[in-house]
């Protein structure tokens, strides 16, 4: 350490001690003008044998204890460096030399976990829900999710505590180490905007080193100081990522990206899903090149992006499918169509997450849960059936006529031959009338398929829709099936389980009721009646 640096630090130490209370605000304002002070303090912190380390830590803590935000932030800028020094020493044999840095970290932690009145701080936030109007949107304008069951379930905004009720800590133990460090990094991140560039560099350096030291990748780094591996905690790595993410977009493009790579590297080795998840997202959403630095640190950038009809009109999208249905609805002259669609539409996504959430655990805990899941879903589709029926009262009239017609037919043909029909017809018709699929099987195995195929149900949603879309183009050739295409597959599967008569309604009224045109589910019903 150079003599001049030493002088700067010593001057800083004595100046604050002799400062009267009244001059603290002006002192806080002028602190950032001491250009050589911050680098000199980094030097002190990095050197465990420096005799100034103890008074410096003490003074940093004093600054943190003051009521002046700027002084607190002055201390906070050194947090990444302090954490690095602490973790490096912990990983090494020699644990005693860490005393004053440990004390400083614990001191900041103990100050931060309570609010001004000394009560435990609770950090919480509200999870916004699209089903509740906000300053930026109206639920109805976002399509049909407004009335879905799932959306209604989440109608109340949920408040989540993401950090809170931390106990006071007198010492670091291996067990509480990362609880304390996570919380400290959370504090750092909540004020990250106020940190100077040197602190961003420090946080990137710390993240890189903590992640690679003792691993093969360290050999590729300029920094090769031998060092034991540092144990890490996934939550702590998430906090590091948050800080590094900020650094990347605020002046430390290159260092930040290197740190990001190193954290992802370590997360892979440790098989930690959380930091891997965030790290992948951050890497994947990076702009292709560094944003041009215009005036020093700010590299956040927004561009005029053309947004007009980038997607050609002919392409089949979720929205176009819905429009398609709308047109047909209008053509059919169905009243109250909107409501019935709101209820049947699973593709908007708002419902799917919530309503499916009861299912995924089914496979894990075996029979009992799976059954419960299917109970839920069948009751919900029962509701759907009711509402749908309400909206289709008109069709009912026609149906009844058809029913009578069918009854006549049924009486004419012997029961045995109908059974044969059913067996022959269903495979042939399958590719055309896919919604009517194989209801017999499905009814039989509802619960089992629910619990084991929950993945198919959810994951194939997209593909099913594509299939449906393909069906949509078939429509011209097979007008007979037009009506059934209105339904998206998921709702269809459920509906067909519970209301065979509904599928009858799907047969378009004008179609002649020949044997060929019977849908398998219709045959099914006959069988069950026979």
């Amino acid at each position, binding site marked *: 350490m150079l003599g001049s640096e030493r002088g700067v630090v010593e001057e800083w130490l004595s100046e604050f001690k002799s400062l009267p209370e009244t001059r603290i605000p002006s002192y806080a304002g002028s602190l950032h003008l001491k250009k050589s002070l911050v680098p000199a303090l980094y030097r002190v912190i990095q050197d465990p044998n420096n005799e100034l380390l103890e008074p410096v830590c003490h003074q940093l803590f004093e600054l943190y204890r003051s009521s002046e935000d700027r002084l607190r932030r002055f201390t906070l800028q050194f947090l990444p460096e302090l954490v690095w020094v602490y973790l490096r020493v912990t990983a090494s044999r020699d644990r005693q030399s860490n005393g004053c840095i440990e004390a400083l970290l614990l001191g900041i932690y103990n100050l931060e976990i309570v609010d001004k009145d000394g009560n435990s701080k609770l950090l919480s936030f509200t*999870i916004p829900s699209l089903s509740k109007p906000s300053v930026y949107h109206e639920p109805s304008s976002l399509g049909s999710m407004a009335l879905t069951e799932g959306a209604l379930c989440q109608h109340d905004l949920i408040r989540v505590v993401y950090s809170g009720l931390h106990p006071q800590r007198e010492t670091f133990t291996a067990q509480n180490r990362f609880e304390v460090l996570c919380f400290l990094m959370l504090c750092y991140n909540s004020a990250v905007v106020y940190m100077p560039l040197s602190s961003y560099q420090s946080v990137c350096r710390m993240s890189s080193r903590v992640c690679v030291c003792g691993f093969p990748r360290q050999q590729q780094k300029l920094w090769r100081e031998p060092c034991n591996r540092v144990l890490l905690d996934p939550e702590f790595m998430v906090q590091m990522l948050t800080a590094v993410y900020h650094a990347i977009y605020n002046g430390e493009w290159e260092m930040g990206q290197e740190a990001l790579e190193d954290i992802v590297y370590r997360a892979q080795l440790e098989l930690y*899903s959380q930091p891997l998840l965030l790290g992948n997202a951050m890497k994947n959403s990076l702009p292709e090149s560094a944003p041009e630095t215009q005036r020093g640190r700010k590299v956040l950038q927004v561009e005029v992006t053309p947004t007009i009809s980038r997607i050609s009109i002919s392409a089949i999208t979720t929205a176009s499918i819905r429009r398609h249905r709308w047109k047909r609805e209008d053509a059919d002259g169905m009243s109250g169509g909107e409501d019935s669609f709101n209820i049947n539409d699973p593709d908007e996504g708002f419902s799917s997450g919530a309503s499916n959430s009861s299912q995924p655990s089914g*496979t894990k805990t075996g029979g009992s849960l799976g059954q419960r899941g299917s109970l839920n879903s069948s009751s919900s589709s029962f509701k759907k059936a009711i509402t749908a029926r309400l909206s289709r009262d008109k069709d009912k009239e026609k149906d009844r006529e058809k029913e009578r017609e069918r009854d006549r037919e049924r009486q004419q043909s012997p029961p045995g031959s109908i059974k044969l029909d059913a067996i022959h017809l269903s495979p042939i018709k399958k590719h055309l009338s896919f919604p009517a699929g194989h209801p017999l099987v499905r009814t039989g195995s509802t619960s089992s398929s629910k619990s084991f195929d929950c993945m198919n149900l959810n994951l194939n949603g997209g593909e099913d829709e594509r299939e449906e879309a393909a069906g949509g183009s078939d429509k011209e050739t097979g007008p007979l099936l037009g009506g059934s295409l209105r339904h998206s597959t998921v709702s269809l599967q459920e509906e067909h389980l519970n209301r065979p008569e509904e599928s009858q309604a799907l047969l378009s009224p004008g179609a002649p009721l020949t044997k060929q045109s019977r849908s398998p589910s219709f045959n099914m019903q006959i069988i069950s009646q026979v």
Partner: protein
Amino acid sequence: MTARKSGSRLESEIERCRSESQWDKIPELVRQLSAKLISNGLCLEKVPSSSPSLSNKNSPSTNRSPAEREQEIITCYEKSGDIALLYLQEAEKVSGIQNRSPKPGPTSQDLELGYFLETGLQRAHVIHFKNGNLTQGVGRFREILRAVETRTTQNLRMTIARQLAEILLRGMCEQSYWSPLEDPPTVSPLDNPTQKGLTYSKNYTLSRRPRVYSGENLFCPQENTEEALLLLLISESMANRDAVLSRIPEHNNDRIISLQSASVVYDLLTIALGRRGQYEMLSECLERAMKFAFEEFHLWYQLALSLMAAGKSARAVKVLKECIRLKPDDPTIPLLAVKMCIGPLHWLDEGEKFAKMVIDMEEKAAEFRGKGYLAIGLVYSLKATDGKFCSSLSPTDHLAAFYLALQLAVSRQIPEALGYVRQALQLQGDDVHSLHLLALLLSAQKHYHDALNIIEMALSEYPENFNLLYTKVKLEAMCRGPEEALLTCKHMLQIWKSFYNLTNPSDSGRGSSLLDRAIADRRQLNAMTLPDFSDPDTGSVHATSIAASRVEQALSEVASSLQSSAPKHGPLHPWMTLAQIWLHAAEVYIGMSKPAEATACTQEAANLFPTSHNVLYMRGQIAELRGNMDDAKRWYEEALSINPTHVKTMQRLGLILHQLQRYSLSEKVLRDAVQVNSTAHDVWNSLGEVLQAQGNAAAATECFLTALELEASSPILPFTIIPRAL
């Protein structure tokens, strides 16, 4: 000058049309007007600030500062943007198109944002950001977004919402945040300091302003992440709507565009929810991304990781399989799968398959190869077969040394195991499992005091580790008498209380309060214990025994899961831990021959898990202590009906049968017990006694010798209480 004039002329023209209800004319006029304003702005930007511009002769151009010019440019853009928003809203209202998005109106002459309108709406905030003026850029973003949406502005809003979310996540933090309905801070670190004093103020007025969202109880974000999340959810719903589903080649480009725009939104959602620990909600969001995900590795992988982080292991493994198919060369993916198979799922065969994939990658797996061998060794070790894995591949990995030590310990090669556990401790001095294993090894050598010292040392680093505490109770009862052990039990109850009252509620579950979670936990608990008895469908022996062994497994792993703060296997743990503590206390009381106290403790555990075989076993022991052999026998039989492979119960039952002189049945039970666990020395001992009573002296001797040998290397608690996970 001329531009100005015609601008105001256009404005009055529009007003006139409006009052005369000539709606069809308005769009064209608006387009003209904003075109005027925008070309004005573009010109001003192009003209270098030094030369006086022609179009502004009327202003005192000679002494105009650059600041004023900037101001004028921005005014042009913002004004044109506002006018555009306003008239789009009105036009749409009148033509009867309610902006119920999916439905095109009957007269759907979709208005289109032309180049000019779009520039007007975007250019202003772009300039703010270019000038480093974040506060105002954010303000302008918010103004546009608060205006009620029209069909025409949907795409624009989707883009802007995403951009604002990006700014919030990348350039702001909790302390620098101000809510959309508050005034921005006057001095902000967000703004470029060189631009100070250049604050822009709105200096134009419009007779009417664009309609904004209003009403009772509007949700207004109060926090950085909140606003980002809201914007991203809005953006997501729109991106989702534009998902191009057809896969024909002509639509390839469209599909890529829709995928990219959605993918960015999902990445940002991941970042926002991840930093708040909301993995469950995240996994639900990412599931909605699946309609884009055909053959898209990134989306699949992210879904898998979010499911894993949310604790939905079974689904995560399934999704990981798809990831492996899409990217067969990445060793991380099968390793993640093994981790869950070994850990929460106990799918050992599956795990073996995944681990073999990693090993088969050979050199390609690089640093992960060692992990692959470690994984397969663990699988074998868990399958209780002879696991030999190669720790030479990663000599710096303390886990390899540790598991080798553990495996040696399980097969009772105590001195060798001690060597490896020391090596592990050298690599990672405060690894809790290594310390625990060391203590158990010492106890196997009957150095109980040393073992207790090690445990206490470990506890100074991990004061809330129940697994260590259980061992401590056992050792204390042995070395220092039962009173000390009871004190430790009491201490454990206190820790339990403070631990679960103070636990971090954010780690799982969306938002429910702690209390809710506790209640939900209890409900699940009931659901879990139910199938043991009351579920007629799972009545077959096989099913029940699986259910029972699940309960057992969970119970015995309770402790293992409480290490540090990381593991969250399931919601059951708090209650299982509590039951476990009570049972330990009961055991100490039994050791003190105090049946009443032991009964009370057992009852506490029974309140939580009435059908746990551990509880029933303890009841049997108490009955035995009271001399009530018939009761004891009944309890043991009940315990075995729930878990037919519980060795301790089998041993006690065998002993009672022996006392009742039903030798052959006793022998059968004990032989079964030895089959399940061949290292339980007291079972061998009892078996020897039974054989002796039957007059089979030779076999009895052999049993006694085995028992003696095993006893010499028997730890105070089985080595297998140390969890094995990647």
